[in-house]
């Protein structure tokens, strides 16, 4: 049976269809999880996609994190289920406390929409299992608040526990330690600012995002057989 991926839709999300498209192209099953839902509907993995949930009012993710569906996502994550936040989804997961740190305005105060190179730093996460560490992937970033920030203690912990999943080869936004993506202590919750779903077809200029989504589908299948 193909892995079932639930894609969360908040008012203001705008990358959910792209994620669904890629999951289906890779043979997975994808469905929308409405922000007002109180369950993840039997999903084997959850993606919190990019966009501007609730207009990014107050702070990106600050309002979205209180959506009913986020309680279900937190419970799913606590049970070891794979959860991936992309761009605004990463911001939502940090606000929800499912990932450490915070995303601040880019150091240069510019909205950045450009392809970047990312280095896979660990193969031990729901999004990178099976990948070779050191692999460089090219995909777009599209954000105003992508500067990853955390205190020294948290940074030391992330490094010591091998929880920096992706680093920018050439830091575009001032993120501490060039961090583009991190994972939870359980390694099943992953957040990243770049957009793998936008690097999923030759016509988009890169297919490097496919390996990440494929790894997620494999993590989902493992999670499904376990659960």
């Amino acid at each position: 049976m193909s892995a079932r991926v639930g894609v969360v839709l908040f008012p203001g999300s705008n990358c959910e269809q792209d994620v669904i498209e890629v999951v289906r192209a890779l043979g997975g099953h994808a469905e929308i999880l409405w922000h007002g839902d109180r369950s993840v509907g039997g999903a084997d993995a959850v993606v919190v996609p990019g966009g501007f949930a609730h207009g990014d009012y107050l702070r990106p993710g600050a309002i979205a994190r209180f959506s009913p569906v986020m309680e279900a996502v937190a419970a799913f994550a606590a049970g070891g289920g794979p959860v991936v936040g992309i761009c605004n989804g990463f911001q939502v997961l940090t606000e929800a406390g499912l990932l450490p740190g915070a995303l601040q305005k880019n150091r240069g105060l510019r909205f950045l929409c450009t392809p970047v190179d990312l280095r896979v730093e660990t193969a031990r996460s729901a999004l990178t299992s099976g990948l070779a560490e050191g692999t460089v992937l090219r995909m777009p970033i599209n954000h105003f608040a992508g500067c990853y920030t955390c205190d020294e203690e948290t940074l030391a912990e992330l490094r010591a526990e091998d929880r920096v999943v992706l680093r920018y080869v050439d830091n575009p936004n001032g993120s501490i330690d060039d961090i583009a993506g991190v994972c939870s202590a359980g390694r099943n919750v992953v957040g990243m600012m770049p957009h793998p779903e936008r690097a999923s077809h030759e016509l988009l200029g890169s297919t490097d995002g496919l390996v990440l989504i494929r790894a997620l589908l494999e993590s989902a299948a493992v999670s499904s057989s376990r659960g």
Partner: protein
Amino acid sequence: MQFSVLVEVTLRPGVADPQGATIERSLPALGFTEVRGVTVGKAIRFTIEAAGEDAARARVAELCERFLTNPVIEDARIELHEVAAAR
């Protein structure tokens, strides 16, 4: 009792403030060469109903902790004073 509240949200010490830095860098061109230490935050105003000032302050502190600030990067300063209740 009703209280008028001003919450000032500021970045925690040590957290980079690119907006403040950009404003400060632009000031000499306007002739304000004597200005230092520019920081940018948010001001959030509202009224709250509470039994007394301590109760109001505790409620607002909880609201700041859970929602109005991200404690990873932000601090809040709370100012409040009693106002005549609206009818």
